[in-house]
């Protein structure tokens, strides 16, 4: 569990509904699980429902973790 794909919100439609796009595919999705959604947001869509906003890759938050990883991997190249 669970298949979810990031979509971009193109337009908010009636209550609970939005037009979203992913790689050229347009579809209607539900927004009841994420009422704060706005046009232009990128959201994770699962089973037809937006469940969370996708924030840009959290480079800062994970930066120190990635530093650790790279340092370790230098001692053990693939």
């Amino acid at each position, binding site marked *: 569990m669970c298949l979810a794909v990031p979509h971009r919100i193109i337009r908010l439609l009636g209550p609970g509904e939005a037009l979203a796009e992913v790689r050229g595919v347009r579809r209607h999705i539900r927004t009841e*699980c*994420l009422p704060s959604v706005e046009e232009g947001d990128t959201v994770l869509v*699962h089973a037809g429902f937006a469940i969370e906003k996708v924030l840009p890759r959290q480079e800062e938050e994970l930066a120190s973790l990635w530093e650790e*990883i*790279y340092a370790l991997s230098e001692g*053990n190249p693939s």
Partner: protein
Amino acid sequence: MTSLSRAQACLGAIRERQASLKEPVLLMEVCGTHTMAIARHALKQLLPRELSLVSGPGCPVCVTHQRDLEQALALARQKGVLLATYGDMLRVPGYASSLQEEKARGASVRVVTSAMEALELARNNGAQKTVFLGIGFETTAPATAAALLRAREEKISNFFVHSLHKRVPPVLRFLASQKDIPLRGFLLPGHVATILGEAPFAFLGEEYSLASVIAGFEREEILLGIAALLGQILRKEFRVQNVYPQSVRSGGNPEARKLMDEVFRPARALWRGLGELDDSGLVLGEAYEAFDASFLVPPLSEELEEEHVQARNLCRCGDILLGRLAPRECPLFGSSCTPVHPLGPCMVSGEGSCAAAWRYEKTFKGAN
């Protein structure tokens, strides 16, 4: 940094950390989508030999018990019922049949890709009762809840839900308490965490000293999760670590949880291969009883269950899911239980431990 170089860096880090640990490590993932992604990218083969990554009961479809399936089949067979289900459920076997088979026999079974689609079917088919099969963990339950809320608002009286939704934290607690399994940590399901946040998983570190990492689903995200788990084990610092921050907020999604709480209540549930676990299922609360499909069918006959006791008793999925037993050690493996005629969840899931073993062991000896 490309996806490939990140993945390679993680593998390097995993090897380094595993080498430093100098002892075998057993980790478990509890997410069907993680199981699939790990198999798709053939990741297990690339891990050091002393590091075992086991597939736990993380596929909500596969852990749906035969008894629950039989209720769904009974619903599908009823005249005037249109059963709407996610595609995942179609081939899952009950005791003697499946939704696919009932469909072939003439039952009204429709595949939908969203709970709202099922509600739309109810709106458009006034003469029939539309029953939606609610499966999935906390990632999917809010969607079912939203559909029910709308059904209630619009007074749609021919829409019903047969809730087979299950909860992840209780099964994690069950797994963590199995003292005979040398589990050191969990790769936590990223999208369940999207809904629940970090808090419901904190007990793993606090009460059981288990490493826990919330991970995403790309191969480098999974490998990052594994590397982070080993880091926690090395440092003996056990806490919920979120390495999927782009999609998981530490507090999860409160709106989605509110929808679930409004409609569902926790209840004891039956898991294929594991038995009954307290509070591990979600059933419709009192306010939504009118939509509960379980009132549409009589309870299962005892004769039906007795008929299939033998197969049920021999199925070792419980032990396989808990990492106690290897697939080939199960008496039914490869004989009465194969991917074409699966009995337990480990074979039902295309990427379950048994289905994977059936494919891999034919040829790739030595692959995990």
